[in-house]
């Protein structure tokens, strides 16, 4: 089973241009609001017509601009779970579920509806009207209404955005279970990073109508292929770099030199150890590298190699992966202080500045700590020691 999508749609002030192939599981479309997620889904469902491109599900061509094919929505057999569920308020739960079964004989209709009511735990509610149901029940009815038609692809448009946090966790569990039972594609869109990660094994990151990155969730979160993907997966700490040695870079926005493990380093390099540089550098005073007057101590050869990759690569580390240590001699460890603290019930987000870094242009480093760790740390006198553990750093392309 494959879903192939390659479409373009021009709207005033917005251009959607996405292409992807979905395999046999739950694919997540992650992006902020206005990134084109819903539009993509509507194009697949046939509720919106793209200007160019092709949409194919298995052997069925839904849309092909060149051949002039545009299957109407009703013939696509696509399940669509709307953000607000779009239940029919004038029909009972039972009537809502049997809505699409018009073509079936009566007996089969009632059998399938009964099956769905059972599966979705809606048995006692079949004569109720949508207004008389809770948010969670409404969602189950909406799912039942789509799944009873045995769609080949199920499209879910932010199914939890209409619910409060408490209910959301419960329902997410249920939905994951339901999606597990359902043998077809599902395409799940959300702006919630954590939700996307929990529900979808494969992710598509969308930004301004384009795909920033796609792949297995573990890969995307561990090594985002570009800065946009890094931001979309929730990485707050990104810095431009300057190449110093084959395994060392200068993080221009943070104001420090970092040892980078060669496996993570996308530029060709020789794998031998160099002495670690543990203190923020003098060269920070002139943050923007210039060809002539920079890096007196460095070999010219190394520097030229660095210039080649410069600007194209950034370095990043996730906020929870910055660690606070007591041992100054560890690799990538720098004295720092905090400029602001934002407290949540169980955690704290700190904004950090490395000592000796003068107004780094890109601004700030953010660190995430649980309250217990914070209790210990905030009693310590400045400077604190923050560590960029080499294995946690990733290099990523600019985008």
């Amino acid at each position, binding site marked *: 089973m494959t879903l192939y999508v390659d479409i373009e749609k021009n709207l005033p002030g917005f251009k959607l241009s996405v292409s992807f192939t979905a395999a046999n599981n739950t694919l997540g479309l992650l992006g902020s609001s206005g990134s084109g997620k819903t539009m993509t889904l509507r194009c697949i*469902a046939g509720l919106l017509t793209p200007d160019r491109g092709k949409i194919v599900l298995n052997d069925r061509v839904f849309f092909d601009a060149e051949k002039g094919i545009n299957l109407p929505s*009703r013939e*696509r057999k696509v399940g*669509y779970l*709307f953000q*607000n569920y779009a239940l029919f308020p*004038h029909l009972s739960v039972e009537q809502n579920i049997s*809505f699409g079964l018009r073509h079936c004989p009566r007996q089969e209709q009632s059998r399938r509806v009964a099956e769905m009511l059972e599966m979705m735990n809606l048995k006692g509610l079949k004569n109720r*009207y949508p207004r008389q149901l809770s948010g969670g029940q409404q969602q189950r009815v909406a799912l039942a209404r789509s799944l009873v*038609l045995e769609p080949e692809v199920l499209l879910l448009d932010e199914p939890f955005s209409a619910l409060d946090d408490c209910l959301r966790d419960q329902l997410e569990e249920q939905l994951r279970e339901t999606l597990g039972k359902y043998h077809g594609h599902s395409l799940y869109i959300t702006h919630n990073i954590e939700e996307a990660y929990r529900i979808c094994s494969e992710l598509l990151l969308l930004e301004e109508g384009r795909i920033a990155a796609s792949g297995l969730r573990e890969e995307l979160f561990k090594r985002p292929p570009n800065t946009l993907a890094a931001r979309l997966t929730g990485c707050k700490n990104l810095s431009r770099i300057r190449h110093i040695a084959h395994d060392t870079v200068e993080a221009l926005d943070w104001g420090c030199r970092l040892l980078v493990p060669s496996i993570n380093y996308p530029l060709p390099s020789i794998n031998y150890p160099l002495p670690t540089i543990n203190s923020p550098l003098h060269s920070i005073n002139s943050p923007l590298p210039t060809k002539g007057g920079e890096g007196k101590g460095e070999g010219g050869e190394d520097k030229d190699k660095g210039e080649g990759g410069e600007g194209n690569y950034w370095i990043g580390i996730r906020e929870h992966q910055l660690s606070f240590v007591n041992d100054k001699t560890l690799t990538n460890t720098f004295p720092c202080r905090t400029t602001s603290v934002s407290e949540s019930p169980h955690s704290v987000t700190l904004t950090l500045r490395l000592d000796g870094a003068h107004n780094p242009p890109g601004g700030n480093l953010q660190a995430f700590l649980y309250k217990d760790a914070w209790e210990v740390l905030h009693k310590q006198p400045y400077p604190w020691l923050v560590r960029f553990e080499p294995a946690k750093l990733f290099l990523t392309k600019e985008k």
Partner: protein
Amino acid sequence: MELSPLFISLQTAAAATAAAFFPGILAARWLAHTPPGKGKALADGLLIMPLLLPPTVIGFLLLLIFGNRGLLGRTLSEWGLPIVFTWPGAVIAAAVVTFPLMYRTARGAFEQVDPDMLDAARTMGDTEWRLFWRILLPLSWPGITSGIILSFARALGEFGATLMLAGNIPGKTQTMPIAIYFAVEGGKRDVALVWTLIMIAVATTIVLSLNYWSDRRQNFAGRHKGK
């Protein structure tokens, strides 16, 4: 006192409302979910025109169309279906004047329906025609009902266009508003007063039934509780 104006009025208004109903909701369906644009604004303007023009202008235009000099009027006359100074003429005049009310209320009611619901019906295999009957019309029914009532009230009160096209033929085309006008003109003030009281009674009934319908509209689930 001759009671025929009451029955003629009710019959004419009922027929005119029925005549305005189908074109009204079709036009409403057509324009409710089209994206805004110049074409939409122009079409809306044309459809609403009978409401904006004075009824005498409508009446005169209808005379041009249905009179013996108009092509349509001549043809219909030849077929034995004269319009001018006939009851069908009164119905046509009232229907034209009433149409914008029907169209506008229906459109408002259609626009209130969440478009996602229509899309949901589409993904579940419904044709446009079928979802119109299964989803759109039932969901906008309370709004459309008030449209029907308003149209009926407007048709009942129609004077200018009716007089110009259908004239004042007692027992044939003389409706209540026309009867009042000619009663006053003929010095029969007491007759005019009776008709006026009857008209007030009818109008009150209409207002009450309108309120009743809008109450029902607020509570959708309640409509089915008895079932």
